[in-house]
């Protein structure tokens, strides 16, 4: 992974000093709350329901073992012994003290971590494929390009006060695992016929209040122009994005208002002025950064490992875990392991300090000292030998990180919701738990198969509910929590937004609602099609009829 040189480290150290000075002036009353707010947000510090919330950046989801241990230390020292892994591959602490945050930032800086631009109307953490570098279907490893963009975005003077937040994601594989279509800028890296690297540009995607899929404004831009092209998009947005209404301020609204053709024209006009200028990337710089992402020192191993196969054949629980939580690797004899943060009874994405230490130990012993976060809020050990899988499983199981449910119904994506977040209309965590408890039987889970349930506590959509096969959105009606349900959403190459099935439900109804949706699927399932395939084939009606027609769901019509 990328390791800082003296320039990177000095910049981060200077940021720590800058923020410490700002915090001091704020606490001394020299910097009003209004003046301090954007500064603390650009350093990841929110004021939340119970306490400040501190959001730490994990660029493109990569964590070294020493960084995990530092997070564990922060959780024990400044928080309540746990952290929350988010859908944006950030880490959140829910209980720090305001005045401690500069010290926490300094601790992070000592392991090349930070909370830069994890909030505020600026360029946020760059997202890339959690399986970059190890996936068999990869065309371009996007990590060097993500790091190049990270550096360009960090403390960028021109784009720190945009109309609204700005998120960039990169894909470089056949299967899109980052959902590039729902980002402000989505870059699809590929190679042309001559084998040269370049990228397709999507703009104006996003979830939130106005979910829209991004539109293509360029089909292939050569790699040298990565910064100048993105800079041109940002410049058009910074000048012309709406600032009069926070709900209309994202770039998607500008793109929609101008139309893709006019937006492209304006970007190209800006680009003509900076193309081939100083921000044009050099082969030397790309090579310098790419070197950090060279393959680790893989051993030459046979594709099959007899001991592993024997262990799998003799242990049903191990076999179940291998089936759900172990993925193919590009190298023979290696696999990627997904550690589940979706154990029933634990809020999705929460991880204790001890678990973080365990992941760090596992990474050191079995996966070249690195782990990765996924936007599904799980943790990946990317480079595990097949012969080590049984040992990894035993340790992970002991640490309660081996729930064999990846991709299954209980692998729920959920934001922190109303239990913590002051933006939320409704709680998310109890909804997830209610559903997980209803579907606690593993055999039944396996029979249901792959399905994604995404829960957001408000329309800001941190839980990505629009692209869940089943999406749940918390809404407020006269001060009560209600939940609107969508089905048919999808992430990946066929990204689609779910459709609302009807009136909203009370929290207590939600497990029944999901049960009815699943029952409808099982009744209509053809061969081994997934829930989402059935929805696409038969449409919403049979699901609606079952959910709303069935007498055993008590009808509670809000605002009736």
């Amino acid at each position, binding site marked *: 992974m990328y390791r800082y040189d003296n320039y990177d480290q000095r910049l981060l150290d200077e940021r720590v000093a800058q923020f410490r000075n700002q915090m001091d002036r704020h606490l001394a009353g020299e910097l009003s709350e209004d003046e301090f707010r954007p500064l603390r947000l650009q350093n990841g510090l929110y004021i939340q329901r119970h306490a400040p919330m501190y959001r730490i950046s994990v660029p493109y989801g990569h964590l070294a073992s020493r960084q995990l241990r530092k997070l564990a230390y922060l959780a024990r020292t400044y928080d309540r012994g746990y952290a929350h892994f988010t859908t944006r591959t950030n880490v959140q602490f829910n209980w720090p003290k305001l005045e401690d945050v500069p010290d926490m930032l300094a601790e992070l800086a000592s392991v090349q971590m930070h909370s830069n631009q994890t909030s505020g109307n600026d360029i946020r953490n760059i997202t890339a494929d959690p399986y970059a570098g190890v996936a068999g279907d990869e065309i371009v490893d996007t990590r060097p390009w993500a790091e190049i963009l990270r550096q360009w975005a960090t*403390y960028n*003077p*021109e784009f720190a006060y945009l109309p609204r937040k700005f998120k960039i994601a990169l894909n470089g594989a056949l299967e899109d695992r980052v959902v590039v279509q729902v980002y402000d800028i989505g870059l699809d890296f590929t190679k042309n016929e001559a084998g040269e690297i370049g990228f397709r540009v999507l703009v104006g995607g996003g979830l939130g209040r106005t979910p829209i899929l991004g539109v293509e404004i360029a089909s292939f831009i050569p790699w040298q122009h990565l910064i100048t092209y993105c800079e041109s998009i940002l410049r058009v947005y910074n000048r012309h994005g709406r600032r009069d209404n926070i709900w209309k301020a994202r770039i998607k609204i500008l793109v929609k208002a101008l139309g893709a053709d006019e937006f492209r024209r304006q970007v190209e006009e800006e680009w003509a002025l900076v193309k081939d200028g100083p921000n044009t990337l050099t082969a030397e710089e790309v090579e310098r950064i790419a070197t950090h992402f060279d393959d680790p020192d893989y051993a030459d191993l046979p594709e099959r490992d007899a001991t592993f196969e024997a262990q799998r054949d003799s242990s049903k629980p191990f076999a179940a875990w291998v089936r759900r939580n172990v993925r193919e690797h590009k190298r023979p004899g290696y696999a990627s392991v997904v550690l589940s943060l979706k154990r029933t009874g634990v809020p999705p994405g929460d991880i204790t300090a001890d678990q973080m230490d365990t992941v760090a130990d596992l990474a050191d012993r079995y996966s070249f000292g690195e782990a990765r976060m996924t936007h599904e809020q799980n943790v990946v050990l990317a480079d595990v030998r097949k012969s080590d899988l049984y040992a990894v499983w035993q340790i992970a199981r002991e640490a309660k990180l081996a729930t064999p449910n990846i991709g299954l119904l209980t692998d729920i994506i959920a934001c922190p919701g109303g239990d913590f977040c002051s933006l939320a209309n409704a709680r998310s965590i109890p909804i997830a738990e209610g559903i997980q408890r209803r579907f606690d039987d593993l055999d039944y889970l396996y029979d249901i198969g792959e399905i994604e349930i995404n829960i957001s506590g408000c329309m800001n959509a941190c839980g990505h509910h629009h692209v869940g096969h089943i999406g749940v959105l918390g809404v407020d009606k006269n001060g009560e929590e209600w939940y609107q349900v969508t089905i048919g959403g999808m992430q990946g190459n066929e990204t689609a937004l779910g459709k609302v099935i009807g009136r909203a439900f009370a929290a207590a109804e939600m497990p029944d609602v999901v049960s009815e949706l699943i029952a409808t699927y099982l009744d209509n399932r053809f061969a081994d099609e997934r829930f989402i395939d059935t929805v696409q084939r038969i449409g919403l009606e049979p699901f609606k009829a079952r959910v709303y027609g069935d007498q055993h769901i008590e009808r509670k019509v809000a605002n009736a």
Partner: protein
Amino acid sequence: MPKVIHKGQVVADNWQVFRLPEGADAATAAIPTGQVIVPFPVWQVRREELLASADAVGVWLAGSDDPAALADDLHALALVAVDFPKFTDGRGYSIAVALRTRFGYTGPLRAIGQVLRDQFNYLSRSGFDTLAPAEGRYTDAQLEAAVASLADFTDPYQASVIHPQPLFRRHSRAAA
């Protein structure tokens, strides 16, 4: 006398910012005498009159003004300013970059309006050489202390108006 930061020094300043009163007509409003920075709409309709006056004249752009519309006049102005109605309104940064890079303006470029210490670094990197906080916002001592903010980042990643090359072209960065 009000003070501003100009090229890293706290200096006394005579420039007045003229803001068109509510309902006033740009063509007829009374413009104060002395060194004055007029709003772009006033400049548009009274260019000849202003150029003929004995006093130096500057023009300020609002976030919604197009800097391209001022491009042909830049050589005739003693000063250009960009207004920040709120410090969180970042349009002025891109306007400054456009004035400096696209239109080649090399004269004094001043940030006016809600101009605060914690934006000084980014403002100066975007091309502002003069930072004019609202009168009374900072004491002289606070303004002197605020000069340090200009140096918050020694060697930033980005190319910008005051760093024409990005870090990767300014220095040879060793490989891993």
